[in-house]
């Protein structure tokens, strides 16, 4: 204790080894009970149809020991770090560093993105991965309009992705329309579905909105699975045509691009074309979002996010504001879906599960909700991290779920937890996003 009784020092942060040991022991005991049956006993359908089981006490012991050790490490780390106090106003030096990074990081990333096909020309894997990351960047930016700007919590975003993908796939395979005709159509159709979802949920807020959008996403997926005559059901749609460069196909034929330019054909050409296509689409999404934020409708979205009642009082038409947010977000989802269909050449309902919605939402929230750069960084982190664990196969989703929990506890406000206000009085002061409230719908 402090020598001065008048001003007692804050409670000591470090506690004895006995405390840590006791805590770890309790954790290990809880783990033992939790895993006793689930890990200790393994069941499987036997050869005669009945169930058989065998024990795995070694695995159980190893896991309990891991929990014991992990608990000690976590406790030590916690004491070493000390209490976490969130700062309301970002301090000056941090702010300066942030603004420097913010000014240069985005252009640097953009230049790097443009150069990826040049640098990694022969590495098909990296190109494919980059296309995947950019698809999620685009989806994240699209959902960001709904969740980050308008504050409407949407757990069924994958529905619009599916609508876009199936619009292109069905129009192209049934009517032979080209990608460039279908792309706007897919966007329009998805936006139409966005409005269709938007109308009923106008009065809902927060969690109710989330669960209704989730149900909507599931309904779309179930209808796709069951409407076999149109969508092919669980077998999906295959043979979706590849995109062309203004009518010139990127294949090995005589009127293909390679033949026209007089260079040797390589399948990499198409990959690079797809890469620049999704990069362009993502940048359009970003540009439109940035421009919209400066228009009255964008300001209305942000006002709606902060306080719906005040919005109404100020005479903002809440109905059109919400519907445009849903429609805009859905439209970008539709574009991304059309791109997904043309890149894969095959789509099935399996690609449009709730997991995808949760992944995109996690990207937006981790990105700091409303921060364009943050969403891009979060997409790179999440999809890249997901790829790193590819070798772990079935453990991958387990680690993904754990990462979501840990990241939420560690940084509930996302990786980039501050944002510059759109409108400010006298001076532009970055505020911690603790001060803004999203998700109230």
């Amino acid at each position, binding site marked *: 204790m402090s020598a001065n009784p008048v001003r007692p020092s804050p409670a000591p942060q470090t506690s004895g080894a006995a405390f840590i040991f006791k805590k770890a022991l309790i954790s290990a005991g*809880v783990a033992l*009970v*939790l895993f*006793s*049956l*689930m890990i200790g*006993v*393994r*069941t*499987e*359908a036997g050869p005669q*149809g*009945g*169930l058989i*089981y065998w024990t795995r006490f070694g695995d159980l012991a190893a896991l309990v020991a891991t929990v014991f050790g992990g608990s000690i490490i976590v406790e030590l780390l916690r004491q070493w770090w000390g209490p976490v106090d969130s700062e309301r106003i970002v301090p000056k030096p941090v702010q300066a560093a942030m603004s420097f990074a913010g000014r240069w990081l985005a252009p640097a990333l953009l230049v790097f993105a443009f150069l990826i096909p040049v640098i990694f020309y022969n590495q098909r894997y990296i190109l494919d991965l980059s296309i995947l990351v950019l698809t999620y960047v685009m989806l994240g930016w699209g959902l960001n309009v709904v969740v980050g700007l308008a504050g409407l*919590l949407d757990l069924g975003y994958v529905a619009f992705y599916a609508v876009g993908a199936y619009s292109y796939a069905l129009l192209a395979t049934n009517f032979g329309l080209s990608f460039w005709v279908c792309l706007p159509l897919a966007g329009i159709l998805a936006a139409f579905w966005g409005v269709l979802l938007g109308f*009923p*949920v106008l*009065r*809902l807020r*927060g*969690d*109710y909105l*989330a*669960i*209704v959008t*989730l*149900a*909507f996403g*599931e*309904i779309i997926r*179930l*209808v796709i699975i*069951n409407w076999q005559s149109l969508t092919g059901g669980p077998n999906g749609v295959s043979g979706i045509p590849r995109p062309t460069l203004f009518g010139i196909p990127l294949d090995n034929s005589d009127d293909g691009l390679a033949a026209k330019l007089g260079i040797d054909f390589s399948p990499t050409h198409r990959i690079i074309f797809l890469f620049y296509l999704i990069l362009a689409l993502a940048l359009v999404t970003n540009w439109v979002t940035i421009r919209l934020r400066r228009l009255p409708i964008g300001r209305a979205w942000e006002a709606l996010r902060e306080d719906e*009642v005040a919005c109404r009082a100020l005479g903002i038409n809440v109905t059109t504001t919400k519907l445009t947010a849903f429609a805009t977000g859905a439209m970008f989802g539709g574009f991304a879906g059309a791109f997904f269909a043309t890149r894969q050449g095959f789509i099935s309902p399996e690609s449009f599960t*709730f*997991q995808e919605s*949760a992944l995109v*939402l*996690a990207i937006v*929230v981790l990105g700091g*909700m409303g921060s364009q750069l943050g969403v891009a960084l979060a997409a790179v982190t999440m999809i890249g991290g997901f790829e790193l664990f590819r070798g772990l196969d*079935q*453990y991958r*989703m*387990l680690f*993904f*779920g*754990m*990462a*979501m*929990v840990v990241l*939420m*506890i560690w940084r*509930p*406000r996302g990786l980039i937890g501050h944002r510059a206000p759109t409108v400010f009085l006298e001076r532009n002061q970055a505020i911690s996003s603790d001060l803004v*409230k*999203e*998700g*109230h719908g």
Partner: protein
Amino acid sequence: MDYFAQQLINGLVLGSIYGLIAIGYTMVYGIVGMINFAHGDIFMIGGFIALISFLVLVSFGLTAVPVILLIVLLVSMAITALYGWTIERIAYRPLRHSFRLAPMLSAIGMSFVLTNFSQVSQGARVKPVPPIITGGYTLHEGPAGFAVQLSNIQIVVVLATIVLLALFTWIVSRTRLGRDMRACEQDQTMAALLGVDVDRTISMTFVIGAALAAVAGMMYLLYYGLVDFFMGFVAGIKAFTAAVLGGIGSLPGAMLGGLAIGLIETFWSAYFSVEYKDVAAFSILIVVLIFMPTGLLGRPEVEKV
């Protein structure tokens, strides 16, 4: 008419299972104000633990069915309740005063963890069990050889639900713990000032919800004779639908909503199409929220500025 009566029985049994899960949603939402996305997976874990403990008991040579059922029930309730407690402790408590999206995403992450945990630890294949409770009664012999059946397992499910619901209503309305829960639901700060241990009360809410979900999981196992790692997701959404339909925060409402969803789903499958039964359940969720946002027995939410 016979066909209708049979579907009514089936629907009530299914509805009881949904109702048991829905209680967990409605209590947690009432107290913490969050959708516990992992609750459906708790139900799945409960089913698995019931299955495993059943297998182990049978291999030890126990043959008396009532004894086995009682032990399985207690074991699965206890272990699943510990799952509920641990999840609240790890994933939700640190985020209690955070903004609203954070616990929700944490819950979604936890749901992924539980689903994949049981897939990794118990394998992806469906686990069938032989029927444990057999036999039943023929209530009415129809003219065309169609008979209305009431099986013993259906009686057990409905009886267990009624007993648990009565016990639970008693806990909430008559005991110290129930009073604490209701106090926390109204105003956590005020409850804490008056000496209610808020952390402990919230933990107990999760524990009770998980225990009821374990009962639902065991009933599901007995009734359908199988469990798989993915059954929690759809059952969870439907039970949440039931909670919303009955009015979130209301216990009798959750049970009523569960019965309604069970009946609707059964009748839809019987008279329209089996493929679209989930679509029907989800559509009802949307329609209810639009026209009756407070549900059947819920209180209207006062909008505070």
